[in-house]
C-alpha cells in the first residue's frame, strides 16, 4: 500500500474483538445455507427470516441462485475462549458480471470462507474466487460442504484442495450447512484463524464497499472503517467525488439496520448522509473526515464500466416516458447501469443501455418488466468496439448501427476475456470445438488429480455473451464450469451483418461479427428468423447482408387462409371474442415496416447454435 508510508507516523491499532470475513462459493455450493446457519447459531435470525430479509432480498436473485446485492451482517459470537466477538459477514455477489463489486467486498475483509461442494468438488468459479481472495491477502478457511450427501466424497475433494489451492488437507472443515454439521468449527475458525483488523486510530478512512439507494433516506453507504472512526455528526468527504456531507446516522446490520453511536476502526456498518444519488458516492469510494482528511484514498477505486450494451424499446411507443422514468429509478439503485436515449428506424424511440455483463442486462430487463410492468423489446447485445478510422480518429461503438462505413475503417478492436473452463476429460474435444468456432485460443491445459481438466482460453467477449455458456453446458451435459475475466482489447477482422426484412434493413437486428463467421451466422439467423416470424398477409423475404452483399436468404410465405367458417348459431359474441384473441396475439408484436415481428425475433441473435 502506498498509503502505509504516509500514515506510518500514526499509531497502528488492532481491533482484537472484530473479525471481518466473507463467504465465497460456486453457485449452489451452499453459501446462503451456511450464512443462514451462522446467523441462526448466534441467534440473530430465524432461518426463513434470514433468507427473506437479510441476504438475498430480491426474488430475482434467489431465482437465479445468486446474490447481486450485498448486505453485510454483524453477528455477536461468544467463542470457546469465553470472549465475545463481533463477526462481520460481508456478502459477495456470485457472478463475474459483478467482479468489481466482489473485489471491493473482499477488500473489506481479512478472511474468507471458501465453500466447496463435497460431491462436485472445485469448480472454475471456486478457483477464480480463490485467486481473487488471495490477491486481497485474505486468510482462507476451506469448508467442504454437503458431506451428508450420498454422492459426497470429501477425501477426493480435500485432495483437490491440496492440489489446486495448495492448502493443507488438515485445514479443511467438513460440514453440512443444511444439517448444522461443522458450523461450530467454522465459527471458531473464524475467530482463531482470521486475523483481527489492523489500522490507524487517527484520520478516518472508510471503504465504501457497497451503496444502496433508499427512497426515504437517500444513499445508504456500506462502510468498512479502515482507519479512524465514523460517527453521526461527522462531516465526511467522498474522496472519489470530492464532495462533503454531514453524516446523519451510522449503524450496523443485525441484520436490519440498527443505529449505533459510532463505527470504530476495523468495524463494518452503514452510514447515511443525505446523499441524493448513487452517482455522488459509489462502490470503491473512500470517505474521510472533511476537517482532517486522509492524505490518500484507499486503493482500488474504479468507475463501473459497462461491458455489454443493448437497446431497450417499449413495445408500445406510448410507454417511452414510462421506460425513461423506470430507468431513472433503477439507476438510483444501480450505479453500474448507464443509459441514453437512442432511436431505431425499426423500433422508434428507446434507450441504449450499458451493463456490466449479460446477467446484469437480464436482471435489469426483468426488473423493468416485473416491477414497472413494461413490455420491452431488447435488441441483440453488443460489446464495446474500438474503431480506428482512416483519418486516425478513434470511435467507441456500442451499437452496431453506428459502425462507420467499411471504407472509413482502418481497424476494429474488440474486448477479450480470459476464460477458465473446468471439465471432465470426456468433453475436452467438444469444448475445443465450441471455443475454436468462437475464435478462442487455448492458453493452458492442466490435468487435475481427479481426472478433470482446466482449460484456459483467450476469447472475444462478444463470443462469450452470445449463448456460449448455454452451449458449454449442453455440450458437456452440464459438467463444465466457466469463469472469465477481462484482459483488454485486441484487433479483430470484424464486419457488420445486416438483416433485411421485406427488403428493408432492420437496424435492431444487425450485429458485428468476425468476417470468417459472418456468412455462417447470417444463414443461421435467417433460418431462425424464418421460424420465429409468423406468416403475414404477404411474402416476407429475410436476407442477411455484409457490406450490401446478400449472404443468406429465407422466405416466410404469405398466410393463405385464416377465416372462421361458422356462425355458431348466432353466437356472435363468441365469434367476436375469437377474433379479438387472435388480434391480441398480434398486438404483442412489433411492426417493423409492414412486417409484424414477435419479441423473440430480436433475441434470436442470442441463440445461434452452431
Amino acid at each position, binding site marked *: 500500500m502506498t498509503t502505509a508510508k504516509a500514515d506510518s507516523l500514526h499509531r497502528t491499532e488492532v481491533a482484537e474483538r472484530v473479525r471481518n470475513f466473507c463467504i465465497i462459493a460456486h453457485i449452489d455450493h451452499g453459501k446462503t445455507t451456511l450464512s443462514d446457519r451462522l446467523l441462526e447459531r448466534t441467534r440473530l435470525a430465524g432461518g426463513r427470516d434470514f433468507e427473506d430479509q437479510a441476504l438475498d432480498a430480491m426474488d430475482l436473485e434467489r431465482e437465479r441462485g445468486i446474490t447481486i446485492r450485498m448486505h453485510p451482517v454483524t453477528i455477536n459470537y461468544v467463542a470457546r475462549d469465553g470472549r465475545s466477538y463481533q463477526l462481520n459477514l460481508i456478502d459477495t455477489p456470485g457472478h463475474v458480471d459483478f467482479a468489481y463489486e466482489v473485489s471491493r467486498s473482499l477488500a473489506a475483509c481479512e478472511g474468507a470462507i471458501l465453500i466447496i461442494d463435497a460431491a462436485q468438488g472445485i469448480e472454475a468459479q471456486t478457483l477464480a474466487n480463490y485467486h481473487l481472495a488471495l490477491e486481497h491477502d485474505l486468510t482462507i478457511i476451506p469448508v467442504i460442504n454437503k458431506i451428508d450427501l450420498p454422492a459426497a466424497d470429501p477425501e477426493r475433494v480435500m485432495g483437490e484442495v491440496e492440489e489446486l489451492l495448495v492448502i493443507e488437507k488438515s485445514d479443511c472443515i467438513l460440514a453440512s450447512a443444511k444439517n448444522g454439521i461443522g458450523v461450530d468449527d467454522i465459527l471458531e475458525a473464524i475467530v482463531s484463524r482470521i486475523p483481527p483488523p489492523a489500522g490507524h486510530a487517527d484520520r478516518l478512512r472508510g471503504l465504501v464497499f457497497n451503496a444502496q439507494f433508499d427512497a426515504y433516506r437517500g444513499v445508504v453507504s456500506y462502510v468498512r472503517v479502515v482507519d479512524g472512526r465514523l460517527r453521526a455528526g461527522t462531516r465526511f468527504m467522498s474522496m472519489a467525488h470530492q464532495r462533503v456531507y454531514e453524516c446523519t446516522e451510522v449503524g450496523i446490520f443485525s441484520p436490519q439496520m440498527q443505529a449505533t453511536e459510532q463505527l470504530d476502526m476495523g468495524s463494518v456498518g452503514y452510514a447515511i448522509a443525505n446523499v441524493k444519488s448513487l452517482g455522488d458516492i459509489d462502490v470503491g469510494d473512500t470517505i474521510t473526515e472533511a476537517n482532517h482528511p486522509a492524505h490518500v484514498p484507499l486503493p482500488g477505486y474504479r468507475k463501473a464500466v459497462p461491458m455489454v450494451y443493448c437497446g431497450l424499446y417499449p413495445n408500445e411507443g406510448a410507454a417511452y416516458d414510462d421506460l425513461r422514468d423506470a430507468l431513472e429509478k433503477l439507476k438510483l439503485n444501480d450505479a453500474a447501469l448507464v443509459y441514453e436515449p437512442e432511436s431505431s428506424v425499426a423500433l422508434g424511440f428507446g434507450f441504449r443501455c450499458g451493463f456490466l455483463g449479460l446477467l446484469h442486462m437480464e436482471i435489469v430487463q426483468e426488473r423493468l418488466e416485473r416491477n414497472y410492468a413494461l413490455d420491452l423489446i431488447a435488441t441483440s447485445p453488443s460489446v464495446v468496439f474500438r474503431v480506428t478510422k482512416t483519418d486516425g480518429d478513434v470511435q467507441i461503438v456500442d451499437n452496431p448501427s453506428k459502425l462507420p462505413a467499411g471504407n472509413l475503417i482502418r481497424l476494429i478492436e474488440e474486448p477479450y476475456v480470459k476464460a477458465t473452463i473446468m471439465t471432465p476429460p470426456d468433453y475436452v474435444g467438444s469444448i475445443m470445438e465450441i471455443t475454436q468456432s468462437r475464435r478462442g485460443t487455448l492458453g493452458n491445459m492442466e490435468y487435475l488429480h481427479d481426472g478433470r481438466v482446466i482449460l484456459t482460453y483467450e476469447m472475444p467477449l462478444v463470443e462469450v455473451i452470445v449463448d456460449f455458456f448455454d452451449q458449454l453446458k449442453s455440450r458437456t451435459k452440464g459438467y463444465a464450469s466457466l469463469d472469465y475475466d477481462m484482459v483488454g482489447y485486441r484487433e479483430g477482422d470484424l464486419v457488420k451483418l445486416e438483416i433485411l426484412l421485406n427488403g428493408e434493413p432492420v437496424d435492431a437486428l444487425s450485429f458485428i461479427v468476425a468476417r470468417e463467421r459472418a456468412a455462417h451466422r447470417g444463414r443461421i439467423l435467417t433460418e431462425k428468423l424464418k421460424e420465429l416470424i409468423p406468416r403475414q398477409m404477404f411474402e416476407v423475404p429475410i436476407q442477411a447482408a455484409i457490406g450490401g452483399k446478400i449472404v443468406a436468404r429465407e422466405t416466410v410465405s404469405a398466410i393463405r387462409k385464416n377465416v372462421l*367458417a*361458422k356462425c355458431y*348459431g348466432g353466437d356472435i359474441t363468441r365469434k367476436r371474442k*375469437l*377474433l379479438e384473441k387472435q388480434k391480441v396475439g398480434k398486438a404483442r408484436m412489433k411492426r417493423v415496416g409492414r412486417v409484424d415481428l414477435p419479441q423473440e425475433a430480436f433475441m434470436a441473435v442470442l441463440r445461434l447454435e452452431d
Partner: protein
Amino acid sequence: MLGIYVHLPFCPYICPYCDFAKWPHRRSAARRYLDALGREVEAAPAAQAASIFLGGGTPNTYEASEIGALVERLRARFAAGDGAEISVEINPELVGAGDLPIYAGAGVNRLSIGVQSFDPAEIRTLGRRHTPAQVAGVVAAARRAGIRSVSLDLIFAVPGQSPASWRASLIAACELGVDHVSAYGLTVEEGTRYARWREREPTAFFNDDREADLYETALEVLEAAGFEQYEISNFAKPGHRSSHNANYWENGEYFGFGVGAASYRDGERSVHTRDLEAYLRAASADEAIPGTSERLEGAALAGEAVMLALRTAQGVSFAAFKDRYGLDFISFYRPILGRLVEDGLLDIGAAGARLTKRGRFVANDVCGAFVTFAP
C-alpha cells in the same frame, strides 16, 4: 327484421367434431325439453318474425308431427306469414317417408341437410351414418313435398380428405340440383374428440395452405355450377339466399330459444346456459334462463357490425353504416384502412367496402382489425 332461432339439442349419435350444445337422444328428456321450450316461447314478447330456423343438435330426432306442431306454434306466436323463411336442419338418414310433406304442410319452406361429404370414408371419419343415396332420396322427397329451397352442408379439410374427393363431393351436391350449399372449413373445437385426435396426431389435419386449396376448389366448382358466393361459407342459386342467416350478418335482431341459444334483442347479445338441466328447470318454472349477456356500444358495436357485414358479398354499405351507427366509415376507420387496402384485402368503393377474394381467405385478419379498433 326479426329472426327466430330454436335449438333442438338431441342427436341419435354424437359427431366427434361437434361443439354445439347437444345430447344423445332420450325420449323422456326430449319430451320434457319440448315442453320447456314451449313455455319459453310463450314467455317471449310479442313480435313479428321474418324467419324461423330450427337448428341443433339434430332437429329431426323429433317426430315429424312434433316438428310440424312446433313450427305451427312458432309461426302463430311470431306472426310468421307465408313470406317468412322457415328452415329446419335435418340428418338425411333419419328422414321417414311421410315426414317432409308434414314439414311442408306446417309451413317449412327450406331444408338444410347435414351431408358434410359424399365420400363414404370421410362420412365415417366424421362419425356420420348416412349414405350418398339417402341424401339423393331426401332431396327428391323435398322437391316432391314442394319445399322451396334445399340446402346442403359440406365440410372440407376433413382428415383423410383429398383434393379430388372434395371436388367430387362438391360436384355431387351440384348434380343433385340443390339451391344452396354451405361449405365450411373444419374447425377443431376445444374439448371435442377431434381436438384430442389432433393432439395425438396433428399431421392428420390440414394446414392452412392445403385448406386454402380446398376452399379455392369450392369457389371454383360452385360458381361454375351457377351458385353465387354471398357469404364466406355460403353459396346460393339466385333467389335462394338464406334470409335467416342474412339477418345475422346485417346485425339484425333475433330471439333464440332453447339450451345454449343466442339472442340479440334491444341491443343486447345474450346466450343461454349450456347446462341442460339448468335450462329445463328455469324454462319449466317460467324463470329467466341463466346465461351470459353483453351490450356493446360505440366502436365495439360498430366493429362487430363491420365484422358481420364483411362476411357478405355486398359488404358494408357506407350509407347504412352512417345511418345506424352515426359514423362515417372512411374517416372513422382511416387509421386501419390503408394497410388493408395495400395488402389487397379490402376493396373500397364509392358506396361501400367489401373483402377482395384474397380478403375472404383471411377474413379473420381483416375483421379482427375492425373489432379491436379503438379510435
